[in-house]
């Protein structure tokens, strides 16, 4: 699925980050109050991009967890960028909450109330990347929009390529 139209190159009447803006489906600043509506916007955008339902639910939750993480631990706000380049959908969440003490991506003990967000984002996408900057954290997840066959109604297919499955029994 390719989009024929491209952003005009070097159009002087449209100042902006040329190149950086390529393939951008969503660019939004967020804070706690906008977390829920942002999730709706991400959901709509990934659906339009052609991500199948199951993968979309996982991807949207992964993104939501990264947004939540930025709100709770990354200074209360951040910026989300959702891009589609070729058939890879990437969402980047940038916060400016200062240096992160630790970014645990592991399974929390069952009696520990917190610490599951990054684990979820990782398990749901298999593509979590965390970059610690001096002034905050850049987190991203990505997924291939053609990763699963377009099965609309019949779940009968047994050779469907599932998304990254959590390793069971660990």
């Amino acid at each position, binding site marked *: 699925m390719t989009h024929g139209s491209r952003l005009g190159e070097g159009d002087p009447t449209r100042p902006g980050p040329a190149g950086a803006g390529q393939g951008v489906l969503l660019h939004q600043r967020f804070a706690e109050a906008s977390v829920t509506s942002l999730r709706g916007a991400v959901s709509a955008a990934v659906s339009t991009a052609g991500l199948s339902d199951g993968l979309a639910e996982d991807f949207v939750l992964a993104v939501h967890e990264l947004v939540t993480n930025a709100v709770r631990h990354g200074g209360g706000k951040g910026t989300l960028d959702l891009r589609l380049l070729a058939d890879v959908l990437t969402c980047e969440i940038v916060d400016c909450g200062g240096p992160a003490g630790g970014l645990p991506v592991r399974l929390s003990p069952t009696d520990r109330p917190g610490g599951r967000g990054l684990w979820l984002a990782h*398990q749901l996408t298999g593509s979590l990347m965390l970059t610690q900057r001096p002034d905050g954290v850049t987190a991203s997840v990505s997924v291939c929009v053609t990763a699963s066959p377009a099965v609309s109604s019949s779940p009968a297919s047994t050779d469907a390529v599932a998304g990254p499955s959590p390793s069971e029994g660990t």
Partner: protein
Amino acid sequence: MNPDLAWHYETGAHDGHTIITLIGEIDMRGAGTLHDILQKALHTAEAVTVDIAGVGFIDSTVISAFVAARNSAQSTDRTFAVINPGAQVRRVLQITGVLDTLTDPHSVQP
């Protein structure tokens, strides 16, 4: 749409057993309220069951509220269980390793 109204709950009680039915999509903006609802219920009931059949979305902060309630219940010798998770919610509980703990059938059976 007001995102604050993305979910609601109903409470039923009999014989010291409280059943809380959650409906909607719950995320970090509702997790604090949910935490308080569950803790309050555990103050007054010997057993608390949370029916989440009508919940289409939870995140890690909601799981935290469930786990905290479960911990409170255990420390006060009460029981707490989450029942009827739908497919997506069940998957999230499974990935985070708390499905069995939270839905432990030995905890509460109405």
